[in-house]
């Protein structure tokens, strides 16, 4: 089966730079609908930036980002806020609103975008919290949650409106093995059960390979490899191998560019 018969996002010739630094140089990325797509690559390659570009929080220098035909960088402010109803995003820190309870955090998007009566909102929120296993924590404040729990609450909030697209920004970073396993499972299960599309930005190779249907590997402002997890295991490029196998030195050097070691040391001795 071809993944790309039905794409939800079609990024064409995307170029984005921050000051002098080019983050993306003429990149094409397609996200298949209903699948889990992973965007992987070393830290600092702008993976999170890609999610912000898709969310319309920043605008590219050139190129288009089509979400179901809407070109996100060219949408007006109002249309953009409407399109965002189709998206849910899980931020790295969870980004729960610290002045609201867990319940209110999950209820927030529902209250904003619907006119549902309170008892119905309550049902929906409890269902979402049940899905992430935290119905019992609904009265707690975000400061009372562990990191893993906060991320699960944030996940419940991200899927509160049943979005078509859920974006995960480094969902596994800084989680203990149990919380990590829980999250991996949840992402996979929710994707299958709710039928939305997931984009995971991550550099946790094993976890991501385990659940992703398709993977883009990004480095040096471009896509250096793409394919299913199985296909990526067989790519021979040394750059890809270095990342996939976590080798300390290779095309991505261990040392930050510097003067010759010997000359640098001798400088201190007149």
């Amino acid at each position, binding site marked *: 089966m071809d993944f790309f018969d039905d794409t939800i996002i079609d990024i064409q010739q995307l170029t984005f730079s921050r000051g002098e630094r080019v983050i993306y140089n003429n990149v094409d990325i397609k996200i298949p609908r209903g699948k889990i797509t992973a965007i992987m690559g070393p830290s600092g390659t702008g993976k999170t930036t890609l999610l912000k570009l898709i969310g319309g929080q920043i605008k590219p220098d050139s190129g288009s980002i089509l979400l179901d035909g809407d070109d996100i960088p060219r949408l007006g402010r109002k249309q953009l*806020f409407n399109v965002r109803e189709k998206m849910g995003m899980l*931020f*790295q820190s969870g980004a729960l609103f*610290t002045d609201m309870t867990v319940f209110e955090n999950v209820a927030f998007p529902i209250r904003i975008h619907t006119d549902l009566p309170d008892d119905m909102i309550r049902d929906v929120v409890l269902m979402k919290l049940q899905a992430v296993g935290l119905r019992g924590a609904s009265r707690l404040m975000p400061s009372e949650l562990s990191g893993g729990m906060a991320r699960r609450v944030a996940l419940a909030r991200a899927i509160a409106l049943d979005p078509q697209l859920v974006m995960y920004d480094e969902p596994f970073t800084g989680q203990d093995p149990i919380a990590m396993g829980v999250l991996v499972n949840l992402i996979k299960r929710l994707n299958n059960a709710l039928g939305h599309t997931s984009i995971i930005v991550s550099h946790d190779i094993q976890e991501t390979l385990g659940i992703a249907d398709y993977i883009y590997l990004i480095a040096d402002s471009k896509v250096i490899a793409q394919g299913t997890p199985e296909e990526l295991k067989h790519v021979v490029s040394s750059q890809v191998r270095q990342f996939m196998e976590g080798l300390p030195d290779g095309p991505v050097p261990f040392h930050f560019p510097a003067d010759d070691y010997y000359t640098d040391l001798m400088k201190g001795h007149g």
Partner: protein
Amino acid sequence: MKALIDWVQGIGSDTLHRLSALGRAGLILAQALIARPTPAQSFPLLIRQLYFVGVLSLIIIVVSGLFIGMVLGLQGYTILVDYGSEQAVGQMVALSLVRELAPVVTALLFAGRAGSALTAEIGLMKATEQLSSMEMIGVDPLRRIIAPRFWAGFISLPILAMIFSAVGIWGGMLVGVDWLGIYEGSFWANMQNSVDFFDDVVNGLIKAQVFGLVVTWIAVYQGYDSVPTSEGISQATTKTVVYSSLAVLGVDFILTALMFGDL
């Protein structure tokens, strides 16, 4: 020669930097405030912020107002008693408070108490991605976070300044009448005769209103535009207090010149 060119270039880039910051601050305020009103959603948010920004500032305002009024009464008495005109203490206390001290000192205290808190709160919301996540949920943080905080400060400051004046005058009376024994009738009568509602009270309130705009605008802008790190937030908080204090004093001179300059 090169040093000179660098210096001129430095001035130029600094000016451009400041101008663009001013533009950004203007845009933020415009985008936050110019919108179709949605009272059902924004009213509860405003009330909440009025509590945090206004009500919680009451204690510092009342205590400072009381002491400043008492000091004014004491100082005024020691000067005026030499001329045998200590009955004018009431008039002096009331005029200096209503015209000048109440709006200015309230604004300075407000910048330190509420402005810094607003900046730190908004900056931390930015650092913890709460503003971004609100945007992704489809809610404009300028409307939801910035607007109610701005209005709360704008509304609170004149009210706080009025309370400051009232408490200060009472403090002046405690010292002048109850302690130093000025005749109560002339204390109040002199005050009533000399304080004009429009020239003094309304002008003082206009000052407080302008300071409310300036201080709260600086506070929300510094928070929203802060660098989302611990260092960035601490710098933004400092800037809020320093810039708003300087702005209040500078604007006060301009307003005073406009209001009372032709006397």
